[in-house]
């Protein structure tokens, strides 16, 4: 049972990591705590659901479509909400308040349009389970692992090995200097927004699949976990978010399995408080995207 619980925990943790990755990327490069991020999570799940219901009942299309759509939504919202503030070099608190307002509005709109009823993907979407050596991994769980692996690998490759990645890291390090060296800030900001939105949306689809429960407010609960993960991992630290996400997933499952299921949601916050007390810069004590 321990092995099975660990496996389940790692898989849940992978979705936390995926979610937190986009959040921390946004913060690390754009220097805003963008609270609309949870909306992309909900939107991703809802878009994939609509896609599988109305267009084609296959995840191999629905997942990229949802990621693309939430990515574009993130670019649009960022441009709409934050361009003015960025130009005016408004303090961080201003962007926090603007995105908070926008988030409340967006959740309310989604709820008004769709209701708070729990929706579910059509059954059997993610294939069948494999069982080996007493361990069982479902189709959804495999999909989560593969998708997380591809997206994290892709992001790290992009940041470390490409010119765009160099530009992103330069902008994160020193926006002024980067722009003087010819980095097109607008383009990089748009790309980072897109990547973050796509990561958040993908995490939404995967969690929606894993728990089979989709509703507009699902992003709100996830944001609390996302906050815990990026603070534990260190704000803006990609590797940190990855490790902290996996850690949180495993600890939650072990708490539910061996202590008490009611304490599960407390784990993240206990860890958060401990981190802030003991290692305020995050587990690894480094805090910017350039360490990616």
């Amino acid at each position, binding site marked *: 049972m321990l092995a099975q619980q660990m496996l389940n925990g790692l898989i849940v943790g992978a979705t936390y990591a995926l979610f937190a990755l986009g959040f921390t990327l946004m913060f690390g490069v754009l220097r805003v705590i963008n609270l609309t991020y949870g909306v992309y999570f909900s939107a991703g799940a809802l878009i994939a659901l609509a896609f599988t219901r109305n267009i084609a009942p296959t995840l191999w299309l629905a997942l990229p479509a949802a990621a693309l759509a939430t990515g574009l939504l993130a670019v649009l919202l960022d441009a709409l909400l934050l361009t003015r503030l960025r130009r005016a070099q408004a303090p961080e608190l201003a962007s926090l308040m603007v995105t908070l307002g926008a988030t409340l509005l967006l959740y309310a709109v989604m709820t008004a349009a769709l209701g708070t009823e*729990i929706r*579910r993907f059509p*059954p059997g979407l993610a294939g069948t389970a494999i069982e080996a050596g007493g361990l069982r991994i479902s189709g959804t769980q495999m999909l989560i692992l593969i998708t997380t692996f591809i997206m994290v690998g892709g992001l790290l490759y992009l940041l470390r090995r490409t010119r765009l990645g160099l530009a992103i890291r330069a902008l994160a390090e020193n926006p002024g200097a980067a722009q003087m060296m010819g980095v097109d800030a607008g383009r990089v900001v748009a790309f980072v927004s897109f990547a973050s939105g796509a990561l958040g949306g993908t995490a939404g689809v995967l969690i929606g699949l894993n728990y089979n429960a989709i509703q507009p407010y699902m992003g709100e609960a996830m944001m609390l976990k996302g906050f815990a993960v990026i603070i534990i991992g260190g704000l803006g630290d990609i590797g940190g978010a990855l490790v902290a996400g996996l850690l949180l997933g495993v600890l939650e499952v072990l708490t539910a399995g061996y202590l008490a299921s009611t304490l599960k949601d407390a784990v993240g916050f206990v860890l958060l408080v401990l981190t802030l007390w003991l290692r305020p810069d995050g587990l690894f004590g480094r805090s910017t995207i350039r360490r990616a």
Partner: protein
Amino acid sequence: MNGLKRVGLTALTLIAAAGTPRAEPTEPVTLGAIEILTGPASRYGVPIMKGFQLALDDINAKGGVIGGRKLALQFEDSAGAKEQAVNAARALIGRDKVPMILGPTLSTEMFAVAPIANERHVPILGTSTTANGITAIGPYVFRTSLPEADVVPVTLRAAQKKFGIKKVALLYGNDDAFTKSGFEVMKAALDKLGIETLATESFGAKDTDFSAQLTKIKSLHPDAVVVSALVEAASGILLEARAQGFPPEIRFIGGNGFNSPVLGQIAGEAADGTLVGSPWFIGKADPANRKFVDEYRAKFKEDPDQFAAQAYDALHIVAAAVDAAGAADPEKIAQSLIKVKLDGVTGPFAFTDNRDPADSSGVVVLEMKGGTFRILE
């Protein structure tokens, strides 16, 4: 906007009330009804509203109450929130001066609302509240729904007899009055039947992740899993259990929360083999039930569920009480309500001295097969 309109209307009503005598003989008798009409738990509240509406048609077509006055209901939505249910009750009692309240939908809400109605001496009647201790709140609190304590033992006894169940795991929602009380009833019934409980696991009402609890339960190899949950969580649990490869021999046995066609719609094949006890079943062949089912289908283009049937019976019981009271007066209605005896679609009905239903002979044990419930044979 809505608030302003309401203030305006209230003012108008006050002016009108000053000029005319309050109760015209032809004026309808309006009762309050607080049900969950929006949100996830509207799966319970909306069928209840429809059951009431169908009963209203029937009662008014037969001449209404108190010598020809029509019966009417003013619906308030609680959205499943205690606070909203409390506000609705205050508005119905204070603003609308209703002589009686039907609902609210969930036991959790009832525990918040009933003390208010009781204090104001306005009778309140739950048609779907099955937790222990509801009617103990006070002498104006009634219910027509059989409490879990009457239904669950029937289900478990049938499961023990038919499938030889010896050891089970218990799983319940620990932050809802109904699911918690269901759990206590289950635990007591299991002890009484000599069935061993291997593990007791819990979850929160808004949880969607049950994987850790079910992984643990699966590793213990129980004969059955006894679950106290509302239908959304129940469906999630069944889906997760099948995803984890629980063999079909492990039966899931549910309380009243499982007892909704929604379970089959959401969980599909994953729900097959699930056992549940019910005070009512759509396939019951008596003429009263057949008439109810036919009329419900004709009016709402869907099948009624247990909650609609209980609501339908409840409003007939209430109408009889209002009629016998001879006036839209809370005290008189409360006094005549306790004496009502009636043969409804859920079987014979009478109140105990404690304002609970007296007769559990109508309970049937159901098994889920191919997405719908059938009577367990």
